[in-house]
């Protein structure tokens, strides 16, 4: 069942790429990509319906042996941690495809790449073998690199290479940690289940865990490994930005929780305070830098750096509620950042600039873009944590859960929501308020194609904000089970303190 999430998009890719150009016109390539992505989304929906939220472990498991001598097996499965992220992936790919410009160059390559990306990300989220995860993690890198390098902005070469090198280093470190874990523990298997219980000396565990944290920290991104992100976002075409911020960053936090916290619960306890401090730095640093930016995409990109900090904070706290908060914040950030990038993309494609010092008065009713502006206000307010939208409840869970563990760090990172209000309010005030300048008066018409993805996102953001049960329903049992591991680990480390 899960294989379809991977092979479905790949089949679409094959169709688009291999059929002769005479048959595969750009319009048809787009149609096929849309149909495949919609099919995957429906299939994901079906999986969600079939998913039993009361079971803590993996569901829909698939297991095939592949390269046994290496310990590489084709093990798939999904739990409450990965399921919401798979949904986000399927959803955002479809939205990104809808939002794609009709007249882009080399459409067949583009649509093939997007579908490969979808397959790679889905594969990484369902892989239950460390090497398999690594493979998918690397697979996802190539299409994104090409998307930035081919359809990107002026400095796309620099940005794409930077992205490639950073992510490759992340992959190498991750691979090193996986090898170390497997060989040092003497299991020679990379199956997630087999590795979980291995007990290594604490020093080794720490070295491996810190390697993993750096590896995933590049992806999340943690300050100071973040500088690839703004460049990549600024140069990437809108759909790539949407997927990058909405889904790909979550690979980092997902990996951190699944492999860092899940495999090294004892060592996690030791680095958690440090991680919480890093989280605060991420939040404040990202927010402060965002205030000083003038490029709309850069503002949203740095806000991603800040908001991913909340996921780190909650992961460091690692109580059941905190893990719940981490998952909720991942989903919330996925939706909100995707929404913001979609909207910035529309503004950019219609006005030709993203500079907040140039744009003005876009909310104007007749010649401006009032609907896009209104959606932008919703998105911005959701990001700033206004209640009634998903950003608030996710952040509230994070704060509420992290406060008992790290009170000072939580209070400090709460300042981030205030700063979010500052930079996003400045953005809205400058770009959408005020009197429209003459040079902007002749904007091209906005098609419904441009609006629909954002409208879907806004509806989801508000719906999940009012009905947060849907946000967390799937993950309760998994988070409880995950933190149970953690509690046992604490009990092992401090045998006397537990009653």
């Amino acid at each position, binding site marked *: 069942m899960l294989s379809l999430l991977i092979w479905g998009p790949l089949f679409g890719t094959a169709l688009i790429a291999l059929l002769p150009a005479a048959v595969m016109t750009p319009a048809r390539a787009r149609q096929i990509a849309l149909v495949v992505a919609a099919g995957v989304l429906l299939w994901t929906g079906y999986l969600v319906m079939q998913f039993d939220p009361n079971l803590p472990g993996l569901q829909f498991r698939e297991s095939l042996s592949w390269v046994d001598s290496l310990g590489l097996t084709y093990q798939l499965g999904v739990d409450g941690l990965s399921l919401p992220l798979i949904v986000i992936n399927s959803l955002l790919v479809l939205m990104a495809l809808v939002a794609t410009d009709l007249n882009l160059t080399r459409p067949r390559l583009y649509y093939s790449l997007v579908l490969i990306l979808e397959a790679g990300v889905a594969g990484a989220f369902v892989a239950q073998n460390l090497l398999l995860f690594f493979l998918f993690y690397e697979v996802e890198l190539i299409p994104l690199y090409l998307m930035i390098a081919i359809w990107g902005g002026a400095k796309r070469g620099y940005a794409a290479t*930077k992205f490639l*090198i950073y992510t490759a280093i992340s992959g190498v470190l991750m691979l090193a940690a996986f090898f170390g874990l497997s060989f040092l523990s003497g299991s020679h298997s990379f199956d997630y289940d087999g590795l979980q219980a291995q007990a290594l000396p604490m020093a080794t565990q720490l070295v491996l865990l810190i390697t993993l944290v750096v590896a995933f920290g590049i992806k999340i991104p943690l*300050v*100071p490994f*973040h*500088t690839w992100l703004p460049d990549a976002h600024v140069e990437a075409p809108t759909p790539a930005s949407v997927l990058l911020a909405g889904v790909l960053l979550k690979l980092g936090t997902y990996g951190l929780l699944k492999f860092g916290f899940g495999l090294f619960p004892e060592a996690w306890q030791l680095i958690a305070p440090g991680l919480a401090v890093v989280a605060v730095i991420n939040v404040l*640093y990202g927010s*402060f*830098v*965002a*205030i*000083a*930016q003038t490029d709309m995409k850069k503002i949203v990109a740095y806000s991603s750096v800040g908001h991913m900090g909340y996921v780190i904070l909650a992961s460091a706290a690692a109580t*059941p*509620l905190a893990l*719940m908060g981490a998952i909720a914040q991942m989903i919330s950030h996925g939706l909100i950042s995707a929404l913001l990038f979609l909207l910035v993309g529309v503004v950019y494609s219609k006005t030709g600039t993203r500079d907040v010092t140039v744009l003005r*008065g876009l*909310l*104007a*009713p007749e010649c401006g873009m*009032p*609907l896009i502006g*209104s959606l932008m*206000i919703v998105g911005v*307010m959701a990001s700033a*944590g*206004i*209640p*009634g939208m998903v950003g*608030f409840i996710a952040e*509230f*869970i994070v*704060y*509420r*859960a992290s*406060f*008992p563990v790290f*009170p000072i760090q*939580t*209070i400090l990172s*709460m*300042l981030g*929501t*205030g*700063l979010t*209000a*500052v930079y996003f*309010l400045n953005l809205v*005030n400058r770009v*959408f*308020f*005020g*009197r*429209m300048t003459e040079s902007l008066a002749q904007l091209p018409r906005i098609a419904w194609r441009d609006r629909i993805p954002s409208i879907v996102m806004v509806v989801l953001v508000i719906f999940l904000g009012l009905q*947060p*049960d849907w946000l*967390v329903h799937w993950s*309760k049992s998994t*988070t*409880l089970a995950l933190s149970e591991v953690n509690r046992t680990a604490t009990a092992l480390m401090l045998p006397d303190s537990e009653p």
Partner: protein
Amino acid sequence: MNQFLIQTAWWVPAYGLLGALLTLPWSIGLIRRTGPRPAAYFNLLMTVLALVHCVALLNDIWDLPVLHIDMPWFRILDLNLYLSLQISRVSVGAAILITGLSLLAQVFALGYLEKDWGLARFYALMGFFEGAMSGLALSDSLFFSYALLEMLTLSTYLLVGFWYAQPLVVKAARDAFLTKRVGDLLLLMGVVAVSTIAGTLDFAELTAWAKTADLAPLTANLLGLALIFGPIGKCAQFPLNLWLDEAMEGPNPASIMRNSVVVACGAYVLIQMQPLLALSPLALTTLMALGAVTAVGASLVAIAQIDIKRALSHTTSAYLGLVFLAVGMQQNEVALLFLFTHAVGKALQFMSVGSIILTTSTQDLREMGGLAGRMPATTSAFVVGSLACVALVPLGSFWSMQEWANRFWLGAPIFVGMLLVVNGLTAFNLTRVFGLVFWGDPQPKTRRAPEAPWLIATPMVALMVIVLLVPVMLWRWGLLPTWSQINWTTVALLVTSGAVGVTAGGLLYLGDRRAQLQGNGWKGIQTLLAQDFCMEQIYRLSIILGVQQGSRLTAWIDRYIVDGAVNLLGFASILGGETLKYTISGQAKHYLLTVFFGVVLGVVCLTWVF
């Protein structure tokens, strides 16, 4: 019927939100053919329903004890969030006040914004505004109240920014949002902490918890301080007071609500949090100190304003300062009474001001004059509203002020003196505004001023009647003191202070027009007051500068140090490659030798480390 009304009490806030939702097709431009009017009618209908529901509910529960309705909203692991409602005379009464004033303001807006293309958007926001406020009135959970306060912040931002094409409006909207946001953020910290420490966010349970709670003084003080800052922002108290003044750039019907009930919402939450605040003497003292500073400071600042709306909005801050003092002294009944009488009086004043602004197209006091004969309804509304706001004749505020003075008379007489000063200054200010607007010779902009159209006049006159009836209502509710309970000393003092204010104002501003505007040699003080004691400059030099420079510095570090290091590394490796390529000889043995040395070096390093 009884049970049904009580069980459906949560509809009251929902009506407003539903109204806002129904206007969407018009406000985003899906329906253009009908014009925006139908959206307004939907909202009016919803507000009427909310009002009727509230009134029927109040009628039903009048004799019942306080009811508590738990509505579980979100439950996850050990976190339970409720949207609890409290059904009591006070809460439903507050909801009636809100929906009633909202109804009047919305009818008023039909006339005021008649030709505005954004009418539907305005009504959507008003519905949202009203829903959030009536929810706040009924809320019995700190979490719910916090969420609604934030929604109020958002809708204030959008309402102030309604005419977003004007630069002043954009700035005002931003300042309103960010200033309130500072307060909200601190409140959120408090909410998170309370939820962790007390394990509940329900006001009733928190009250019970606070009685037995044993907190470290530092924790209690920090908690109390965090909690009071939300209301401070919302009620425009020093040091978060400037937004209200700037918010007067927004459309007037929203100002009616903002100056009467919106600011009161903050104080209302403060009153509900009072048991928690009582844990921290420092928080109560801070509350009183800030309230006192605002009461006197804002009354002084109000006198120097030349914008008619700003002149009145500062007195709102001042009166809310008095409410803060009452809460600080743990006199919640007086605080509530004060909020009520102030709300209706101030709403009436702002309706009258709206009528003036619409007719004359100016907000500048210096450009007005001689309107008394031309706009009789507006004039009488202003006079009645003003009299209801000061203690001179026995209208609303007279009774709340004398009650206020009685409660402070024994404990803290110095505050009674302060009340007299505020009352006197406000009376002076209102007389000044009256003199400049309604008295004297007509100015170019007021020469051809007709009375306001009926859509404006009707709600204004209706509210005027209500304001006049307030003493009767108080009497019916048993809130008036009996003849023997009246402290005649305070009454005499209050009336004297009001009379002194009116007389001084009359002497200065009811006379010859030219004399008033030049004359006095107090230029320096006047400028200082007109600029709100340079508060804005102080903000700019402190917190704004801090954030700005901090962000610039971080961005610089990001660009030149963090990213610079990365680029340097990249540059170094390219340079290294480019340089080393000249050493290539093409002979395999050299390569093997290099590889060999490299491996040796690596092995040495590894053995060295371990």
